[in-house]
């Protein structure tokens, strides 16, 4: 059975490094939880 081919790594299409992308995702999570909390409070 032929071997699986090598795949290359590459930088993300935005923010330059993957570390920055991960940080952005975690900041986004904090914002979205805050938004959900404010949504709950606003319509309680």
């Amino acid at each position, binding site marked *: 059975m032929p071997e*699986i081919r090598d795949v290359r790594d590459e930088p*993300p299409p935005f923010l330059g490094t993957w570390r920055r992308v991960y940080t952005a995702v975690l900041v986004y*999570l904090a914002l979205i*939880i805050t938004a959900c909390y404010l*949504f709950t409070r606003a*319509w309680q």
Partner: protein
Amino acid sequence: MTGLDWVVLFITLTVIVGYGLYRSRGSNTVDRFLLAGKTMPWYAMALSIMATQASAVTFISTTGQAYTDGMRFVQFYFGLPIAMVILCATVVPVFHRAKVFTAYEYLEQRFDSKTRALASIIFLCQRGLSAGLTLYAPAIVLSVILGWPERATIFLMGVTVITYTTLGGVKAVTWSDVQQMIIIFVGLVIALVTLIHMMPASLSLPDALYLAGAAGRLNAVTTTFNWDDRFTLWSGLIGGTFLFLSYFGCDQSQVQRYLTGKSIGQSRESLIFNAVAKIPMQFFILFIGAMVFVFHLFVAPPVLFERAVLDRMQHTAAFQPVQEHYQSAFDRRREAAQRLIEAHHSGDGPGEQQQASSYRAAQRDLDAARKEASKLVESTTGEKDFDDTNYIFLSFVTRYLPAGLVGLIIAVIFAATMSASAGEINSLATVTMIDLYRRYFRKGATDHHYLMASRWATVFWGAYAVIFAGWGRKLGSLIVAVNVVGSLFYGSLLGVFVLAFFFRHVRGTAAFFGMLAGEAAIFWAFFFTGISFLWYNVIGCVVVILTALTITHGMGPQKAGGEAITDARA
């Protein structure tokens, strides 16, 4: 369903399957059949990952849940972005560089063959049990809605999935998933817009939100901590992170999606897309359920949403008073809702408080009438724990949405079922062929031999899922048990992968016995405690790690393993 609905349903499903098969041309080697020759772009993987996770039950059950219990379920997904970041940083590059077909193949590179075999068998047990359910659960609902026999619905969906998965492999599955997710998005957006358009003309969107919120249907975040409560901020963040780490990092049905990426970066992007899009998507689906609730503040909902049961019950004498109670409770709630909106608009604070109390009391009375009806169904039919939550959204769709749109929404449910089922069957076949057949029964055969073995394994698991689903009703409460059992295996799988990635000195034997101890701990929690299932993953994972570390410490790194460490990161 009208003729137009049938045309829309038929065309939608034909296009989805046809396009998937068209894009899968050339899947004539094992590498192409199981990994698409590592050629998939990020957006195809991203939508395929989303489609595989979102089964039909996600759409019909989640909307119903928002209708009855509010939007708390969204918290379940708060751990997903954290899990995706961890997986992108660790698992994705390691699996790609290890050049593996399955996640469990990597365990042999890192530990030994027995650890790989145990993990593969745990996966086959868990995913195999849920494969039938994936077809069975929506088939019951669709059969009631369409008036078809359950087995005909299961057979139609099952044979369609088996056909394109066997012929086109992972490429057909992925490209069909892309179409399915597009149909799902389009269908749900149109459903929400139509729903809002159908609200009373005097009711603005903020009014609708106000009424839903006053009835507790917009409770997206619960900050209190409770071990027994499935959906809180904390269970979502902690338990959810562990669950999604297990699901996306150790479950072949998901790992196989991103192993098809043409680069490590493309695989990462597909997971990052899910990290960003999943919570808003679930919020949106739950919001539809909350808006269905508001719609039914002014248009009387049926006392029972499962129409066949309602028709049967209406012929019984005992049902009449329940129906009358329900109708009068509905009238009171509608009037209370109108008075509450008027008080809200007038700016009369104390009056608004009073009207809000009356509105909530009317809601409780309506809930009590529905509970009374459910009890009556249980005593009349002998069915235990009657629950028609899954019928709420489709009941609304078939009763109130215009012709054509009904067909589209039914196509959404079919599409969601087929995408989840195809991913499961494809991954079960891959593990069967790579981790068992090629590893233990037939080494060194030709590529063509393994390609045919993969196809036959796909047919086997597809047929198994159809047969299991076809006997679903006869299995009765076992089906419920099986659903729970599915959540009992992830913790130990996650634990062994955490050992593999982060504890370099731990060897095979320690990992193997750690997994066994982790499973024992989860089963103990399941049988002897009331802890919510989301915490099982945390418990299992921690026990696997502690046990393996204890064994390693007690025996010394040389005796606790056997083989030398072959870390794919090196």
